[in-house]
């Protein structure tokens, strides 16, 4: 049991390494995790210039947008890329379960997409001279950690769906901006009509953004932050549990349909 865990951890880390080596200089990834969030950050910085805490708010918010875009586009694309190159089929027939590999790959994608936040931070502080203080670092860092964990496990839900059919690809364009709107990355959801609030509450990225904003420049309300952590953790647990089932069902399904490789 312990040995298996060690082995799986090692394999997952190696999968992460493979992702980073494979995708190091991909222009699509550069756009998704650097250019787009950075342009959003510049727009945000300019538009919110009259607000005192604008800079750190925008850095966190645009960073979240990069994290989410990467989730939608890069995780999905990387599955399809493996389908084209024939390695997806290989992975399925390996003795290591696919969710272990996927977790490692998601780790790489999520860590990589933290670059959005870092780039926005660098631009705002170095080039535009904003003072960027994080008000409550002791709350912020765990918030970031729980966010990363929640995103990685959400990726475990996305991956099997992308494995099921390359056609899912068509929908991903429609998954990006709605989350930006509903999750309060760059403006409070109080601006939205009231009936949308329950939807925001159901979305994990909303709580991630909430914890990060609250600890970076909000009041640092410990209650709010702790509650957000609890929800992030709960989501993580749910995602992991659901994904195990989903992987089982979908891997069986693709072996029945013969849609793993290219026909």
């Amino acid at each position, binding site marked *: 049991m312990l040995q298996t865990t060690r082995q799986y951890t*090692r*394999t997952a880390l190696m999968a992460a390494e*493979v992702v980073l*080596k494979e995708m190091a200089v991909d222009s699509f990834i550069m756009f998704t995790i650097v250019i787009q969030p950075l342009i959003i950050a510049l727009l945000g910085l300019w538009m919110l210039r009259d607000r005192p805490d604008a800079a750190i708010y925008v850095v966190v918010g645009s960073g979240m947008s990069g994290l989410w875009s990467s989730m939608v586009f890069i995780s999905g694309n990387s599955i399809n890329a493996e389908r084209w190159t024939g390695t997806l089929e290989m992975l399925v027939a390996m*003795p290591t379960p696919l969710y272990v*590999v996927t977790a490692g790959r998601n780790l790489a994608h999520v860590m990589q997409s933290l670059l959005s936040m870092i780039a926005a931070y660098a631009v705002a502080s170095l080039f535009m001279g904003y003072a960027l203080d994080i008000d409550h670092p002791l709350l912020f860092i765990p918030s970031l950690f729980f966010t990363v964990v929640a995103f990685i496990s959400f990726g475990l839900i996305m991956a099997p769906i992308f494995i099921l059919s390359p056609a899912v690809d068509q929908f991903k364009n429609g998954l990006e901006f709605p989350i930006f709107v509903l999750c309060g990355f760059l403006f409070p959801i109080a601006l939205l009509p009231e009936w949308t609030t329950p939807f925001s509450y159901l979305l994990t990225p909303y709580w991630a953004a909430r914890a990060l904003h609250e600890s970076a420049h909000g009041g640092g309300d410990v209650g709010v932050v702790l509650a957000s952590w609890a929800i992030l953790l709960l989501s993580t647990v749910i995602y992991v549990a659901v994904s195990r089932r989903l992987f089982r069902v979908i891997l069986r399904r693709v072996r029945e349909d013969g849609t793993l*490789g290219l026909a």
Partner: protein
Amino acid sequence: MSIAIEVQNLRRVYRASTSILGREKKEIVAVSDVSFDIKQGELFGLLGPNGAGKTTTVKMLATLLIPTSGTATIAGYDVVHQAQKVRESIGFIFGGERGLYWRLSGEDNLRYFASLYRLDPSEAKKRIPYLIELVGLKGRENEKIEGYSRGMKQRLHIARTLLHDPDILFLDEPTIGLDPVGARELRSIVRDLQSEKKTILLTTHYMFEADALCDRIGVIKHGEIVALDTPQNLKQGVQDLSVIEMEVYGIGSEVLDKLRAQPHVDSVSLEDREQKQALVIQSSHGSEIVQDVINNLNGYRVERVVVREPTLEDAYVRLVGG
């Protein structure tokens, strides 16, 4: 000797969409009813024309496809219900270059797959250089795969599939696209594996390869096994035949039809080689009909007429129809 692979009434149907919109589904019976056993340490060849269902069979055995019906066990484990156990005991190659990480080096590919095959890093450290040497990639292992030739990628696949030293191997057209020297080297690796008492299921389109390597051969056609025996016995089945080969020039299909209509002619095939053509005729009357054939080729240039014993290829051609 115990049975390593047991296949019973295996059947696999694909549902493919025929229209762009994917509304109409068509059923393709890729494997209709296949049964065979492979003994431990045996090298079993699966031969058959394109689309006969070889790859589909192998994929079902390698746990990549679930059979529509029928059962298969590998080392005693069921390929559907004990897929995990099966995966630990097998290695597989699907001929060609796909299935590798192109932007990684050969060695990094092996390191990754070693970990997927659950090898300990210390084990992998010893095994990888050994395998790189074995498949003749020494000195190139640190280059990225994208710069490898086709043959190099196929060798890397061989190394990959031997990482966890599996007892059972599925080799689907391992020599496809290799140059003659590369193919010969690969066959010698397969022979070594054979002498290590690995159980091997090999598919190939090269009859001499099958003849030279296989202990037994199953011939599959339209998803069904039409013959299953040792290469010797399969050839025995066509002992009554002789094969007439001649070099001819400028022959068209109407001449072939005329030849096919001749008494005692079993099959006729024509192959283009440079400017000339090779005409191959199978007949149970051997040299007796040579004169008849030549008479029928009146007006065409005919050279180098040879009457020879049948080979495995002739047996194969008779079985699958040529």
